[in-house]
C-alpha cells in the first residue's frame, strides 16, 4: 500500500512528524509501521503537549515509592504495606457508547493497578455531564452509571466514592474519569521495565479482536459531525474475564517468575511491548502469527493496534513457562509465548516467517515528538458583584433551591447502583467527604476522595488548580486521615488552542504550588486533551484523586451530626467571597468574577489542627465547607441523621448572603460535645487558628436566627427528590 498524504492525515500525523518518521527509519514506513507510529505518537500515548508542564509537578516525598512513569503511583503506608493508585479518563468512548465506554474505563484502570502487583481494594469515579435538560444527558448518565457499576460490581471491587456534576460545558463532551486503588506488599511490587535478553514475551488474557482499533487516536482528536462514523472502534468489556485475569496474575506474582509485566491499554500490543523494551533499553521481536485472535484473517496492523480488553504482556524468567501456563490454564485464559527480548533495540514484527515491520524503539518512545505549545495567560476579571444590587431572595428559599438542584442533590440514585461493600473492608461508603477502606486484616485504613472545580479553574486557572488540591486535602482531613499523595486526571480542550494551553499551564502551576506547600506529591495521572466539539472547548477540568492514611481505625468519622445539644464551630475565617459561588450561579445565573483566594498557610494550619482534634477524639462530626458555602455544608450535616441546628447570625456586620453562601476556602465545620469545648478551644488558640462558635445542634429544626426554619424531615426530602424524576 502506498502511503499517501491522505493516509498520513487519517493517522493523525502532521507533515513534520511524518518527515521525522522517514528520518528515523531512513526510508518510508509501510502501513503497519505508520500505524504503530501514529499510535505511539498521538497525544494520548506520547503526552507531547503536556510533557513540558507535567515535569514541574512535585513527585517526591518520603512516602513515595514510585512516582509518575509507571502504570500507577505507589506510596508507603508503613509495615511493608504499599498503596498503588491511578486515575484515568475514558471521555470520548463514553460519549459514543456510555455503558461500554464507562465499563472499559473501569476495567482499564484496574489493570493499571493490578499489573503492579496490587489487589484492587477500591474504585472511584468523577463523572461530568451536560445540562440536565440537554436531550442526551439522561441516557448518558444512565449508561455511564450502569457501566461503572456493571464492571466494578461484577469483578467484585467496591466503588466507594466519586463526584457527579452537571454543567452545559459538557453537553457534547462528557467526562468519565475512573480511579482505582490497590494494596500490595512493599517488597512485592512489579514494574514494566524489561531485563535480560532472549526472555519469553508472553501474551495472556482475552483474545484479540478488531475492537477499538485506533481508540488511542480517537482520544486525541476533537469530535465533529462525522464522529458517528468512528463508532465501530468502541471496545466491549468483559469484567468476568478481567476477574479471572486479576486472580491469575496475582497467583503468578506470588513467586519470582515475572521479570516485568504491562497491561495492554491504549494502543494495545504496540504500546505495551514498546514501553517494556524502551524502559529496559532492549529490543523485542514478536511473532504475530502466535497472537490469539478472536476473528479470522486479522492482519498484523489490526493485531498491533487492537484495543481488545483484558489482556496483559509478561516477560518471564527462564524456565518458568510451564509453571505460569498452568496457572493461566486453571483460570481458562490464553497463554502464548509470542516473542523474545533481544539487544537490537528494535521492535521487530514477524508474520508468516517474514519481517513485516522493524522500528527503532527509541523513535517510538523517547524520541516521540514533544511540543512546547504556545499558550497565553488568562486575563482575569476584576468584576466584583455588588450583593446589594441583586434581586432579593430569602435565605431559606435560596437554600432550598440549591440543595434540590442537580449538583447538590443527594447522589444515592447513583451510588446505590454500585456495590460499595464487597470485600467487607469499606468502613465509610459514599456520601461523606471521603470514603474509608480498611487494609484487610489490619487496623489501619486509607481514606480516598476525588474532586474538581471546573468553574473556578475556568475563571482563574491558578487559583482553581490550587483550590482542587486543597479541597481534596480537606476532604481527607475531614474523615481523620493524613493526606499522603494524589493522582490527577487533566481534562482539557484542544491544546493547539493557545487559550486552552494557557488554562492547562496555569492550572498545573496552581496544582504544583498547592502540592508543594501541602507536601502532597503527585504520584500518577493522566491527560485528556481535545475535549470539545467544533472548536468549543470544555471548561478546564482537572480532577484530583487523593489518598490519606488513618493509622488506627476506630469508629469512622462522618459528616453527619450525631447528638442534640452539641456545639458547632467553624474553623477558618469567613470573608464572604461570592464570585464564582454556587449561590450566584444557581440563584442569579451570574458566572462572573474570580474564585476565592487560597491561602496555603492557613489551609495547612487549619487542616493540621482539625486533624489533631479528630485524632484526639474531640470531634463528633466534621465537614469541610465547599461549594454552596456555610449554609449548604450545615444542611448536609443535618440531613444525614435528621438532626437540626440553631445557628446565630454573625456578630460582625457582614451581609447575611455573603456570610452564609460565600465560598471562602480553608474552612471546616466541627460538632463538639459540650464537655470537650474548652479543650478544643485551647488547642485552636494555641495554634493561632481562627474559629467561631456559631450555634448548636437541636431536635427537629434547621434554624438560623429569624431567617430560616425548616423541619429536618422536610430538608431531607428536598435533598432527595431530584433523581426521582430521572
Amino acid at each position, binding site marked *: 500500500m502506498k502511503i499517501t498524504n491522505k493516509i498520513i492525515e487519517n493517522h493523525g500525523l502532521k507533515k513534520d512528524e511524518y518527515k521525522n518518521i522517514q528520518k528515523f527509519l531512513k526510508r518510508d514506513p509501510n502501513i503497519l509501521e505508520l500505524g504503530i507510529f501514529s499510535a505511539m505518537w498521538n497525544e494520548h500515548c506520547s503526552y507531547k503537549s503536556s510533557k513540558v508542564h507535567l515535569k514541574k509537578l512535585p513527585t517526591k516525598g518520603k512516602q513515595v515509592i514510585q512516582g509518575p512513569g509507571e502504570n500507577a503511583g505507589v506510596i508507603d503506608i508503613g509495615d511493608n504495606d504499599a498503596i498503588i493508585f491511578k486515575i484515568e479518563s475514558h471521555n470520548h468512548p463514553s460519549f459514543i457508547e456510555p455503558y461500554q465506554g464507562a465499563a472499559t474505563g473501569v476495567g482499564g484502570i484496574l489493570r493499571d493497578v493490578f499489573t503492579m502487583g496490587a489487589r484492587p481494594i477500591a474504585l472511584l469515579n468523577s463523572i461530568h455531564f451536560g445540562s440536565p435538560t440537554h436531550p442526551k444527558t439522561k441516557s448518558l448518565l444512565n449508561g455511564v452509571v450502569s457501566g461503572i457499576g456493571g464492571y466494578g460490581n*461484577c469483578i467484585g471491587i467496591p466503588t466507594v466514592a466519586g463526584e457527579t456534576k452537571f454543567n452545559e460545558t459538557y453537553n457534547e463532551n462528557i467526562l468519565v474519569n475512573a480511579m482505582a486503588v490497590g494494596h500490595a506488599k512493599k517488597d512485592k511490587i512489579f514494574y514494566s521495565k524489561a531485563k535480560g535478553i532472549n526472555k519469553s514475551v508472553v501474551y495472556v488474557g482475552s483474545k484479540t479482536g478488531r475492537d477499538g482499533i485506533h481508540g488511542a487516536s480517537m482520544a486525541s482528536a476533537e469530535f465533529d459531525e462525522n464522529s458517528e462514523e468512528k463508532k465501530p472502534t468502541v471496545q466491549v468489556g468483559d469484567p468476568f*474475564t478481567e476477574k479471572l485475569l486479576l486472580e491469575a496474575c496475582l497467583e503468578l506474582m506470588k513467586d519470582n517468575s515475572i521479570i516485568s509485566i504491562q497491561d495492554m491499554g491504549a494502543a494495545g500490543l504496540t504500546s505495551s511491548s514498546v514501553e517494556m523494551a524502551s524502559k529496559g533499553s532492549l529490543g523485542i521481536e514478536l511473532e504475530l502469527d502466535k497472537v490469539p485472535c478472536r476473528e479470522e484473517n486479522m492482519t498484523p496492523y489490526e493485531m498491533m493496534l487492537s484495543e481488545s480488553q483484558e489482556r496483559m504482556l509478561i516477560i518471564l524468567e527462564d524456565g518458568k513457562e510451564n509453571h505460569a501456563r498452568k496457572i493461566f490454564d486453571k483460570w481458562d485464559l490464553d497463554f502464548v509465548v509470542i516473542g523474545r527480548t533481544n539487544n537490537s533495540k528494535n521492535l521487530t514484527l514477524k508474520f508468516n516467517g517474514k519481517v513485516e515491520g522493524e522500528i527503532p524503539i527509541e523513535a517510538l518512545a523517547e524520541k516521540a515528538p514533544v511540543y512546547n505549545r504556545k499558550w497565553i495567560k488568562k486575563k482575569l476579571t476584576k468584576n466584583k458583584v455588588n450583593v446589594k444590587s441583586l434581586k432579593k431572595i430569602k435565605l431559606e428559599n435560596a437554600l432550598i433551591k440549591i440543595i434540590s438542584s442537580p449538583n447538590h442533590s443527594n447522589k444515592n440514585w447513583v*451510588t446505590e447502583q454500585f456495590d460499595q461493600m464487597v470485600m467487607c473492608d469499606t468502613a465509610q461508603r459514599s456520601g461523606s467527604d471521603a470514603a474509608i477502606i480498611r487494609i484487610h486484616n489490619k487496623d489501619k485504613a486509607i481514606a480516598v476522595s476525588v474532586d474538581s472545580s471546573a468553574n473556578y479553574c475556568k475563571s482563574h486557572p491558578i487559583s482553581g488548580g490550587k483550590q482542587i488540591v486543597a479541597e481534596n486535602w480537606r476532604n481527607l482531613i475531614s474523615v481523620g486521615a493524613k493526606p499522603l499523595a494524589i493522582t490527577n486526571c487533566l481534562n482539557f480542550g484542544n491544546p493547539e488552542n493557545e487559550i486552552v494551553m494557557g488554562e492547562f499551564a496555569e492550572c498545573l502551576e496552581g496544582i504544583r504550588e498547592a502540592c508543594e506547600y501541602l507536601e502532597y506529591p503527585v504520584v500518577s495521572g493522566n491527560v485528556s486533551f481535545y475535549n470539545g466539539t467544533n472548536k468549543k472547548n470544555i471548561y478546564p477540568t482537572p480532577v484530583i484523586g487523593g489518598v490519606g492514611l488513618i493509622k488506627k481505625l476506630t469508629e469512622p468519622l462522618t459528616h453527619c451530626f450525631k447528638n442534640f445539644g452539641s456545639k458547632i464551630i467553624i474553623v477558618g475565617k469567613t470573608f464572604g467571597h461570592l464570585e464564582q459561588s454556587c449561590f450566584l450561579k444557581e440563584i442569579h445565573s451570574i458566572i462572573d468574577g474570580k474564585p476565592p483566594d487560597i491561602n496555603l498557610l492557613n489551609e495547612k494550619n487549619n487542616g493540621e489542627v482539625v486533624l489533631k482534634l479528630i485524632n484526639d477524639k474531640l470531634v463528633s462530626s466534621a465537614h469541610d465547607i465547599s461549594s454552596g458555602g456555610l449554609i449548604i455544608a450545615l444542611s448536609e450535616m443535618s440531613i444525614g441523621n435528621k438532626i437540626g441546628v440553631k445557628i446565630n447570625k454573625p456578630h460582625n456586620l457582614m451581609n447575611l448572603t455573603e456570610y452564609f453562601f460565600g465560598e471562602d476556602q480553608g474552612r471546616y465545620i466541627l460538632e463538639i460535645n459540650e464537655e470537650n469545648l474548652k479543650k478544643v478551644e485551647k488547642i485552636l488558640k494555641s495554634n493561632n487558628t481562627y474559629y467561631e462558635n456559631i450555634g448548636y445542634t437541636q431536635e427537629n429544626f434547621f434554624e438560623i436566627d429569624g431567617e430560616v426554619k425548616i423541619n429536618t424531615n422536610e430538608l431531607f426530602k428536598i435533598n432527595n427528590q431530584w433523581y426521582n424524576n430521572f
Partner: protein
Amino acid sequence: MKSSVIVFPGSNCDRDIAVALEKMQFKNQMIWHKETTLPKSDLIVIPGGFSYGDYLRSGAIAGKSSIINEVIKAANSGCLILGICNGFQILTETGLLKGTLLRNKNLKFINKDVYIKVMNTASRFTSKYQNNQILKINIAHNEGNYFTDKKHREELQKENLIAFKYCDESGNISQNSNPNGALDNIAGIFNLKKNILGMMPHPERMVDKFISNDDGVNLFSSLIN
C-alpha cells in the same frame, strides 16, 4: 464445625464469607469448582458474586458445573447448605430450591442496607434469632426479585419455609419496603427439610461493627451449635 465454600470463576464474596466463617470458629476450606469431590463438611456455602459473569441467567452456568452434583448429593444426605445472593440464584438453578430470581423491578443493580424480618426461627440457620426480629442488612444484586409458582407459594406458607422478608425499620412488610419486587417480600427461603437456606441479603457483610453492624452474626452462631 467444618465448612466448605465453593468458588466459581466470577465468585467474589468468597473471601468475605470465609473471613466471617473463620471469625465464628468454623474450620473452613475453599473448594475450586473444578474439584470432583467435596471434603466432608457440616456446612457448604455457595457465596455471592457473578459466577460466569452472570451470563445467560445469573447462576445458570454455575448450576451446571460438575461440583454442583456433589453439592446435590451432600444436600440429599442432609448436609447444611447456605446460598447467599448469587449462591441463592445457583441453588434455584440446580433445583435444590424452588422458584427463581428475576431482575429487580427497577431494572437496576441495588446496593444498600435494608431491613429484613426473621420469619421462622425453627431452623439450623436462624435459631439464635428472635421470631420477628428485624435485621439491618446489606443487599447487592441485579436479580433478587424472587418468583415462584402458585403451588410452591402455598407450600412456602403451609410449611413455614420463608426465612426472611423485606420490611421497613419498624417491621412493616409492604411494597414500600420491598427493594426488588420479590413475591411476598421474600428475602430468603428454606427447602422442605430446612437444611438448605437461600437468601439475597449478605449476612457475611454484617459481622463487624467497624464496617457495618453485627446483625449477621447470629446466623453463623445458630449454625455452629
